[in-house]
């Protein structure tokens, strides 16, 4: 049978690969995933890309596709959640209390805070909102360096180029030389959700089934193992 | 008319304005360095688009700026031996030689290929590339390449300049045969008067972009006015003669206006009219008929004119039975012999002074 083609945000790669493997083991149906930035994938779907399912790291792009009528009506679901954390260079960095009392400027000294692009990449946008919410943004704005994506921001911390960074919990977990020193409370930023939907042009009769599988308990276990929160 | 050239072109600092007509055969372009010879040849080949002019070969118009007609170089079918070689560095000598034949489709003529390769002595070089050739070898390959292109017009810009005498002596007869046996007109640039005298049907002398003299080779080369262009040592007269008999000792006897001539043998049947070029400086004059000299040729004549040049020399023009002969003497001799117009005298000429190349069969044209 034609494999189900999943267009998924690049940060989902490990989890989605595992989910696809599980689905295949389960149903014998093949599926393949193309990973890239959510913006690129959304534009490709706008241009008629052969995607059956789109999983975005960002509700905005899903909204765009929905408005354009490119999603199969009624299939959109919020699939996953994530959290942003403050990470520090080194395996055993001291934990801090991420809250309004955090003296982030003192922690940084004359050095830098690594984030993803604060106006463009979801992790950066959430991170900035959280800092603003905590009244820290104005104090550290000048010290922020913006990487093109979360992994690049993480790399800056891992290499010690920046002593601290703000990244997804899912990224921080597995990295050497980086330790999570605090988590931003869910209320400090808009909810971090990964919406998913079947595309309007999808002709694959297994697409809906696959999306349902992603919502199911088998997939949930996988996503949780990779650090994501799962929305029921 | 075989070759008709009219050109005007202006480079910054140089102004070319020439026009000449030449019959079939070899037209020599003669002139000092920078006189405009290569410029003329380039215009004929179509590599330079002159500001104004017209060139036609055997009535076939190559271009005419007035009518706007312009044949591109590759449709002109010229064989051009460039002053600066221009062999294709990426092709072997053999492929260089055969280059033109791709476009003439005359692959059958392989005997001509062998002939030319042989004549030029480049057989051992065929597999080599031009980068590994000596200067003269390059030049020979360039000559071969032009000849093998089956051209309708040959352009040769100092083709023999860096060749040794022996090699020249092998190539010149080939060019003569080409001139005599084919209809291919040749435009030939050279600084060598003997070469030109031997090959040229017509001589055109350029001076600073203008034609200084043009006409049949015999006339231009024996014109005392051309001496500045030719160099005084090359001055001489060309006189007609008839083959009488070939002698067993390698000499041929001719009948000329002022008497009999014995010269090195040439290949021409008795009765044939030929032309002989006699260098002014090879002629000795005497008021009395000399006896017992090794020089075999004594022509009787009368002094027509005595022209003083610079330095110690004078140029004496003789009238030998209607033909003009030139003799270059010291002023002292001219005075000692009391040579004045009208004075009878004898011209003495050694047989060997006349090189084989100084005797030839004139063209009908």
């Amino acid at each position, binding site marked *: 049978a034609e494999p189900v*083609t999943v267009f998924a945000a*690049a*940060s*989902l*790669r*490990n989890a989605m690969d595992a989910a696809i493997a599980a689905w295949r083991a389960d149903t014998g149906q093949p599926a*393949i*995933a*193309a*990973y*890239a930035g959510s913006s*690129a*994938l959304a*534009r*490709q779907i*706008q*241009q*008629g*890309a*052969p995607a059956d399912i789109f999983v975005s790291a960002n509700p905005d792009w899903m909204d765009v596709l929905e408005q354009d009528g490119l999603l199969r009506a009624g299939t959109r679901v919020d699939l996953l959640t994530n959290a942003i954390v403050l990470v520090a260079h080194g395996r055993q960095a001291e934990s801090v209390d991420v809250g309004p009392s955090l003296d982030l400027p003192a922690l940084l000294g004359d050095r830098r805070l690594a984030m993803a692009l604060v106006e463009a990449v979801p992790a950066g946008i959430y991170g900035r909102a959280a800092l603003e919410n905590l009244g820290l943004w104005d104090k550290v704005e000048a010290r922020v360096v913006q990487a093109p*994506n*979360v*992994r690049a921001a993480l790399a800056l911390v891992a290499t010690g180029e920046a002593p601290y960074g703000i990244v997804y919990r*899912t*990224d921080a*977990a*597995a*990295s050497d030389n980086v330790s999570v020193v605090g988590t931003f409370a869910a209320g400090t930023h808009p909810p971090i959700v990964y919406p998913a939907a079947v595309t309007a042009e999808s002709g694959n009769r297994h697409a809906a089934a696959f999306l349902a599988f992603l919502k199911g308990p088998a997939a949930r276990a996988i996503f949780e193992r990779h650090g994501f929160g799962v929305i029921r | 008319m075989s070759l008709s050239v009219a050109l005007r072109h202006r480079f910054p600092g140089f102004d070319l304005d020439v026009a000449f007509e030449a019959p079939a055969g070899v037209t020599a372009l003669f002139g000092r360095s920078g006189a405009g010879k290569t410029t003329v040849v380039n215009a004929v*080949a*179509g*590599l330079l688009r002159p500001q104004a002019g017209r060139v036609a070969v055997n009535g076939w118009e190559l271009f005419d700026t007035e009518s706007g007609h312009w044949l*591109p*170089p*590759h*449709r*002109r*079918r*010229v*064989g*051009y031996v*460039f002053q*600066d070689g*221009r*062999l*294709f*560095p*990426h*092709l072997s000598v053999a492929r260089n030689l055969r*280059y*033109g034949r*791709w*476009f*003439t489709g005359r692959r059958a003529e392989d005997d001509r290929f062998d002939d030319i390769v042989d004549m030029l002595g480049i057989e051992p070089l065929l597999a080599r*590339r*031009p*980068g*590994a050739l000596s200067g003269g070898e390059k030049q020979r390959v360039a000559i071969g*390449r032009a000849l093998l*292109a089956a051209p309708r017009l040959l*352009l040769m810009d100092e083709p023999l300049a860096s060749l040794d005498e022996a090699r020249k002596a092998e190539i010149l007869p080939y060019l003569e045969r080409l001139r005599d046996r084919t209809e291919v007109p040749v435009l030939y640039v050279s600084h060598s008067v003997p070469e030109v005298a031997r090959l040229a049907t017509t001589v055109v002398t350029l001076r600073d972009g203008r034609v200084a003299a043009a006409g049949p080779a015999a006339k231009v080369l024996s014109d005392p006015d051309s001496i500045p262009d030719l160099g005084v040592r090359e001055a001489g007269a060309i006189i007609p003669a008839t083959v009488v008999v070939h002698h067993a000792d390698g000499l041929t006897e001719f009948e000329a206006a002022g008497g009999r001539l014995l010269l090195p043998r040439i290949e021409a049947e008795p009765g044939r009219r030929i032309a002989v070029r006699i260098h002014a400086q090879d002629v000795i004059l005497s008021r009395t008929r000399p006896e017992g000299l090794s020089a075999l040729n004594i022509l009787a004549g009368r002094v027509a004119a005595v022209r003083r040049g610079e330095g110690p020399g004078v140029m004496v023009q003789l009238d030998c039975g209607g033909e003009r002969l030139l003799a270059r003497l010291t002023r002292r001799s001219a005075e000692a012999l009391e040579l004045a117009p009208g004075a009878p005298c004898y011209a003495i000429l050694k047989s060997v002074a006349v090189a084989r190349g100084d005797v030839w069969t004139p063209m009908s044209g």
Partner: protein
Amino acid sequence: MDWLGPDAWQAVALSIRVAFWATLASLPLAVATALLLARGRFPGRQILNVIVHLPLVMPPVVTGYLLLLTFGRRGAVGSFLAEHFDIVFAFRWTGAALAAAVMGFPLMVRAIRIAVEAVDPGLEQAAGTLGANRCWVFLTVTLPMILPGVIAGALLTFAKAMGEFGATITFVSSIPGETQTIASAVYTFLQVPGGEPAALRLVVVSIVISMGALLVSETLAQRATRRVKGR
């Protein structure tokens, strides 16, 4: 084989295919463009020049985006080609090749153009006098003389195609087995925790392949150069 994993091997095979065809297909056009730019005197020459350089000047993502808009399924050219010639670039490996070709084009054109500008026009004139028309002159004189430049240009394009990712992933996405090249696979590996070793292995493979191409091109170019120098 296990060392890379089957997906990665697919990406390697695809990258080679993409790079090969991108290089080969753009060669004739690049040579023609280089000749036009080096020799042509026509209005609009500078405009052509600018267009050729655009993929270099624009961020690759933008190039990919413009390709998507133009050659995509809904794009003006894309829909025309699909309808009339059944040629589809969108989300096919051919699209990846197109992206790589476009990205490598300025490099290839420039390499060839520099070589064209160094050709002695005297040799072309000589060929002309021997009866070769423009086309023959080009094939028998100009082309052999510029061959080192053409080979260098081809190598640059091939190497660029191996490394190109921004425009490719934006234009044709990164669909395993169809459009996922080494570079886009590397990118996606780098987006997730723990992907670095796999990415590194792929990078090494791509370096080895390009090294092979480099050695081949050096040998060919050296031979061509020696020919051109006439030795």
